[in-house]
Structures are given as structure tokens and as C-alpha cells.
């Protein structure tokens, strides 16, 4: 469904990402893990066209979308849930959701609104409340709902666990699993490797702007290098000894 080949992102002369190649099949839940500054956010922003990406090809649903403006990508069915949620704080929940569907027809909007309220009943209860008054977890739900309003085929998520209590993070991930079961393809980048690897089907590991490892999450969890660098397993064992 999505194939990224040798994508690079530059900030002026600084290269944030080099030669990234990723492929995602329809219906898959893929995660990309990496530490601070590895280039996770740059990858998503480059993919959406929020920051310019050079050299490389991005094919989505058999369309070459490299270099297209963000708006066209959203129309084709790519949608990003930005890092730190970024809801519109002084607008109510309903207006936030409405914004997500601004490129869609009235019919799609109604259908997606029902879908979102069905998935996140809490948003329906609070539809007249200001988004800024919601809790962090509810804001994350709203951000996901807002993205779903654009009727995406592929949902991109940037650090859904950021700044949330562990129990809420679990909640968010179980919602993502529900979405996957309903046929949505999900690609998320995450610093919290343990939870991402637990829920996703397949994973990539990004380090210093390069993909260093990839495979099924079940394999990745058992990988010694991952255990050491992201899950802190070995240190814990040493500590216990």
C-alpha cells in the first residue's frame, strides 16, 4: 500500500534521514521505533510533505506521491496524527472533528462522524466541550478521531504515547487494534518501544537517520540488541544479579 524507497530529509545542510526504505501492506499495523533524535518525526513530516523531502520515491496505492502538496496526500487517504496531539484548544470537540473532514463531502463527513463517535463514545458525550479542557488521553482520542474524519486509508501516528499515563497508553493502543480490525492500515512511530512492539505486527528500528533493523515484532522483541537499547532488559538482569 505504501512504499518508501531511499527517502532523505534535510534541514538546511543537516541530514536528518538518509535512504529510508519502508513498505507497508494493506491492513498491516507497522511501527517504527527509535530513540530521541533518531529522525522518527522527520520521517512522518517528510512523508506528509510538511517538511520537504528530497531524493526518493513514495508510492501510495499505486500513485507516486513524492512531492505532492500535503492537501493532495490527505485527499488520497493519508492522514497524520501529529506529535503532542495538537488539538485546537479553543474550539469545541465537534468543531475539531469537523475540521478533520474539511476536504470531504458532506456524506463522508456524516458517515465518518458516526464511525468516530462509535469508536470513541467519550467524544460524543463531550462534543460541546472545548478541546483544551479535555484530559490528555481524551485529547489523543480526539486527535485520532479528527484524523479519521478525513476518511484515511493509512493512518500515520506520531508518538501516541507521549505524555500519557501508562494505563491511558494501553487504552489508546487497544483503540488502534480495534481500528486495525476494522481494516485500517496503521503506521506509527514511537519511542515507547515495549508497547509499540507488543501491539504492532511488524517493526522497523531507526537509528541516527537510518533503518538498522526490521522484522516481525515477535522477532524484534527477542532481539538482543533491541532488548539492550530499547527495552532495558539486559540492564535489568544485570541489576538483579
Amino acid at each position, binding site marked *: 500500500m505504501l512504499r518508501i524507497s531511499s527517502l532523505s530529509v534535510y534541514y538546511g545542510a543537516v541530514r536528518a534521514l538518509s535512504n529510508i526504505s519502508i513498505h507497508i501492506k494493506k491492513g498491516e499495523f507497522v511501527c517504527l521505533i527509535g530513540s530521541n533524535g533518531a529522525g522518527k518525526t522527520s520521517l512522518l513530516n517528510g512523508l506528509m510533505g510538511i517538511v520537504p523531502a528530497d531524493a526518493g520515491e513514495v508510492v501510495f496505492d499505486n500513485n507516486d506521491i513524492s512531492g505532492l502538496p500535503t492537501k493532495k496526500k490527505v485527499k488520497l487517504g493519508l492522514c497524520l496524527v501529529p506529535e503532542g496531539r495538537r488539538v*485546537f484548544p479553543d474550539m469545541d470537540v465537534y468543531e475539531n472533528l469537523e475540521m478533520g473532514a474539511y476536504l470531504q463531502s458532506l456524506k463522508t463527513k456524516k458517515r465518518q462522524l458516526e464511525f468516530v463517535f462509535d469508536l470513541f463514545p467519550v467524544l460524543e458525550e463531550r462534543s460541546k466541550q472545548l478541546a483544551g479542557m479535555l484530559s490528555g488521553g481524551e485529547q489523543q482520542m480526539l486527535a485520532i478521531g479528527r484524523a479519521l474524519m478525513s476518511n484515511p486509508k493509512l493512518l500515520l501516528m506520531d508518538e501516541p504515547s507521549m505524555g500519557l499515563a501508562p494505563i491511558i497508553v494501553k487504552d489508546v493502543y487497544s483503540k488502534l487494534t480495534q481500528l486495525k480490525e476494522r481494516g485500517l492500515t496503521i503506521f506509527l512511530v514511537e519511542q515507547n518501544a515495549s508497547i509499540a512492539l507488543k501491539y504492532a505486527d511488524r517493526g522497523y528500528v531507526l537509528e541516527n537517520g537510518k533503518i538498522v533493523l526490521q522484522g516481525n515484532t515477535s522477532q524484534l522483541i527477542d532481539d538482543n540488541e533491541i532488548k539492550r537499547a530499547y527495552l532495558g532488559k539486559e540492564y535489568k538482569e544485570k541489576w538483579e544479579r
Partner: protein
Amino acid sequence: MKKINYLFLFTILLILVLTKLLIKNEYYLSIVIFGLFNAINASCFNILLGYTGIISLGQGAFYGIGAYCAVITAASYGISPSIAILMASFFSGILAFVVGYPTLRLHGHYLAMATLGFGMIIYVFMNEMAFLTGGPSGFLDINKFTLLGMSIYGESEFYIFVASMFFVFVVMFELFDKSFLAYKLKFIKESEFASKSFGINIFRTKLLTFSLVAAITAFNGGVYAYYAGFISPVSFNFHYSIQLLTMAIVGGVGSVSGGIVGAAILTALPEFMTAIEDYEMVLYGLFLAVTIIFLPEGLSGLFKKIVGKNASN
């Protein structure tokens, strides 16, 4: 999307008609006319600050550019005033585009400083280019205002013209407020990054809004020049931009009624307090501080709250 507030439009129309019927004194009528000019400018400022989050302290300069360009082109090429005003408005829009292109990448205080600087530069130009503008002593050579062959002269006739212009603008602002464009601007104000990720071209939208608002302000300025019959740089200095800021904030940012209410109060108030004229700026500062602390939604927000409470009781 919300519905158009016909009651609001009707109230405005009623007030405009009643003013014409009740106020016979030319001096009071002239204050009302000044108030209408201020209201349009403050509403324009409100679109920038309240909707888009652009803080521009150069609105006074655009107002002045409109006024000067209109009268200078009309005087030197003998064009009819209405066409000269349109040309001035167009020119001001282009200038705003050129100025906005580098400056609208800035945010908050930096943008305020940049637009303030622009306002200052224009003010210096108006003062120093005496061969064009008449310098500090002002521009005197203003023809009578004619529209479609009809000459408009005197307070009463001008009131009808300015009031109808004002009403057209209010209808436009109300249509804008309920349109998707207003939402788009508010998305940008609330979160630029989220708007970007949904494919809104932030820079282009801001630039177009800024240019359009400058064009309207300049149009207004052109009409003002013909009404006043005499313009000098003092009317378009930094002080005036701050007045507009105060009007928008006291009235309430982010709503159509905000700029109008603010302009009405802050145009009328100094007339009753001529004794403390020297402290006008201090008074504005006080108003600003009090409104921001106690009435973050301005007077129109307060009014809406009271009406809303009564309705729910």
C-alpha cells in the same frame, strides 16, 4: 458551521437609520462618521488578530497609504475619486503582499515589531516626501467626492454614503465569519502544525488574508480622505494602530461585533473627556489591561454571556 445572525445585521441597520433620523447636529454626525471608519478598520484588525492570530501594528500605515494614494492619483491624473480609491486599495494590497512575504514568517512579538517598523517607515515617508504628500502640514488639494456622476458633499450626504459602505462591509464580515474561510483562519491560529498536517497552506492563507485586509483598510482610507477633505500624516501614525488594537480587544477579538462595539466606545469616549486629552494614551493602556484581565472575550463577549444566561434561565 453556524448560521448567519440576521438579528445582528438588522440591529446594525436599525441603529444606522435611527442615527440618521435622530441626529441633526452636524458635529455629532461627524463623530458618528469617524466612528464608522474606525469600526471598519477595527473589524479588519480583528480579522487579523482575532481570527488568524496575525498581530499587525501597521494597519494605520495601510489606512494612510489608501488615503494618500487615492488623493494623489486623483489630483495628479484627474481620475474620478471612486476609481482612484479602488486603485489605492489595489496598490495597498500589493504592498501588503510584498511586506507580508518576508514578515509573515514571524510570530508574536517579532511580527508585531516588524509591522510596527513598517508603520514607522511609511509615517516617515508621508512626512518627508513633501513634494508628493505635502509633508507634515498635510495634503490640501482634495477634490470633491463624486460617485457615478453624483457629487457627495456635507455631513448628511456623506453619512448616507459611509453608513451604506459600512453596512456592506458588516454584511461581508458576517458572511466571512460564518464561512469556511473563517474556520480555516481559526485553525491556523489555534495550531499551525495540526493545520499543516491536514494540508492547509498556512503561509499562503496568511499572506492572502493580510493583503486583502490591507486592501479593505486602504479603501476605507481613501473614502476617509475625501470625507475629511484634508489629510496629514498624524492621522495614520503608530498611535492610530494602537487605537485600533485597543478597539478590537476592548470590543472582543474573534467576533464581528467586537470591532464595531470597541470602535463605538473608543470613538465616543474621548469626546466626553476632552479635559483629560493629554492622558488619552494612558487611558487606552488602562482599558487594554482591564479588558485582558477581566474580560478576555471583550465587551461583546460579556454581552453574549449575559444574553446567554438569561436565555438559559
